[in-house]
């Protein structure tokens, strides 16, 4: 154990002397140590690409009523339409090409997950930083609120909000933000508490910088590593939760068919053996969630200061 630590220090010294590696390069090379994680980020890249460019790469437009024909409904994977278009993954109950519908669904699922994640991160990080920076009563009050909220399962909190608010893209984003902010607040507070007592914050305070400047320009950048890790994993949670809520019929409206809604539509045909309508969107959802989680796990290992070489 000791010797390996010494070796690590030696390696670090050599690196510093040679000056070959910037922190970012080190981060990239550390990340690439794990082959599975590299594969995951490649797959995730493809998924994001599909989500962004769905309208351009989809074989057909699933919302174009001129193209979609009910005569083509519920065709098994690999069959051809009346006009000779190939349906690689079959068609759904309305005769839409499942592959195209999945591309568009991925766009909606990822969009909702990422947008809600970013909003929750901004709100949660600000609140968490405030708690850590001001301490005392502010801290106690905020953390008590966080504890109470985290004692309720996420799906329950989301369900309560959606039962009151109703369906809609904006409403599910509100519900997901309400569910997630507490995780960000707790994480940021944890790392900010450690950073707050370091000398650079003291130095900044001595320079009589404003609270706002110290918190956002000095404290926040040093809390970013843990925030990025939580952000990745929470986004996967958000996507899974949105799919679940949409499946339950309390999430997105029918006009915004996310992956969860596609699966829900296929549920009706499952008992007659038409498995593919639910199966393939589920596989897409699963791959998305697993790859995000794998990337998040590797980021956690790489960004964790305790494990850093």
């Amino acid at each position, binding site marked *: 154990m000791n010797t390996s630590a010494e070796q690590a220090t030696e390696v670090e010294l050599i690196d510093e002397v040679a000056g070959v590696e910037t922190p970012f390069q080190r981060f990239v090379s550390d990340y690439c140590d794990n082959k599975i994680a590299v594969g995951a980020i490649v797959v995730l890249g493809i998924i994001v690409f599909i989500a962004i460019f769905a309208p351009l790469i989809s074989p057909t437009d699933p919302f174009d009523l001129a193209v979609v024909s009910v005569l083509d409904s519920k065709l098994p994977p690999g069959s051809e339409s009346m006009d000779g278009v190939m349906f690689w993954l079959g068609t759904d109950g309305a005769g839409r090409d499942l592959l195209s519908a999945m591309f568009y669904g991925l766009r909606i699922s990822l969009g909702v997950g990422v947008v809600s994640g970013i909003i929750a991160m901004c709100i949660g990080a600000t609140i968490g930083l405030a708690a850590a920076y001001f301490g005392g009563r502010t801290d106690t009050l905020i953390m008590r609120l966080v504890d109470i909220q985290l004692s309720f399962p996420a799906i329950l909190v989301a369900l309560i909000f959606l039962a009151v608010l109703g369906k809609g893209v904006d409403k599910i984003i509100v519900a997901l933000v309400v569910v997630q902010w507490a995780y960000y607040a707790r994480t940021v507070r944890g790392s900010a508490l450690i950073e707050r007592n370091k000398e650079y914050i003291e130095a900044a305070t001595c320079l009589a910088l404003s609270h706002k400047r110290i918190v956002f320009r000095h404290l926040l950048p040093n809390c970013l590593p843990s925030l990025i890790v939580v952000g990745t994993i929470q986004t996967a949670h958000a996507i899974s939760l949105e799919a679940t809520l949409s499946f339950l019929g309390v999430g997105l409206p029918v006009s915004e068919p996310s992956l969860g809604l596609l*699966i829900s539509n296929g549920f009706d045909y499952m008992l007659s053996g038409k498995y593919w309508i639910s*199966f393939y969107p589920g596989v897409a959802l699963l791959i998305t969630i697993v790859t995000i989680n794998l990337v998040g796990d590797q980021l956690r290992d790489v960004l964790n200061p305790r494990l850093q070489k």
Partner: protein
Amino acid sequence: MTVFIIRRLMQSAVVVLLMSFLVFVGVNLVGDPVEMLINPESDQAEIDRVMKSMGLDKPWYVQYGLFLVNAFKGDLGNSFIYGEPALQIIVQRIPATFELALVALLMAIIIGIPFGVYAGLKPKTTLSKTIMAGSILGFSLPTFWVGLMFIMVFAVMLGWLPSTGRGDTVPFMGLDVSFLTMDGLTHLLLPALNLALFKISLVTRLARAGTREVVHQDYIKFARAKGLSQNRVIFVHLMKNILIPVVTVLGLEFGGLIAFSVVTETVFAWPGMGKLIIDSIQNLDRPVVVAYLMIIVVIFVIINLVVDVLYSILDPRVRLQDVKG
């Protein structure tokens, strides 16, 4: 200790009040309470009568007070669909949900602990690696989709197990239960496994981590040195010590099982509270929705309170910290 419990009781009361306020605001101020709480099929005289009895003509703080007073009396309005008191309908569904959650909890223990102990004792074998990879999958798989796949494989393709409903029930200690009849058991198997999947992964990981830690302790070496059989070492010495964290976490997770039963019940058409709330949201049966939200919050507040108190008994530091804070 008393101070701690009193503080926690007060906190619980505040949470319930906050929730009731949120639900009240959501139903009465964001939406139109007349449309939400009064059966759309009733005539003008009926609407006037209900509005008067619910005090909808009064200012909002009086209305909120009335809502609270009525809630305390157990009157949360009548269901539009069933025409019975909303509270009563939900209470009738509670046993089904609890049965499902308890069986899922049991499955998590019966399946998770042997897997975890094996993976902890022999971490290098292929089976162990498969188990651990499977547990990652168990965390990532969306519950509802796994449920659908269960139905597809076991009910549609193989035709082994039924996919919907609760099957035959028999009365047991005053409640109707499924697990005592053969038909009920076959109906219970798939939904309970579906609900348990996440917890099985959790227990497996906990048991593995515990085993790997405990197996190197001196008392295990000593037990081996005494010449005890491998079975006795594992099932008595090792098991006793890994069970503590497993039981604690499972206690904490029981609430999660009840919350997630919403998903499983919807997939398998299990007639519990969770299916009722989803049906009620879709049928716009507002009184049932309001009553469900209030009941589920009270259930969770009670679970959290019990866990907090148990924790403070097990670990005095928790309670001291709280009193100081």
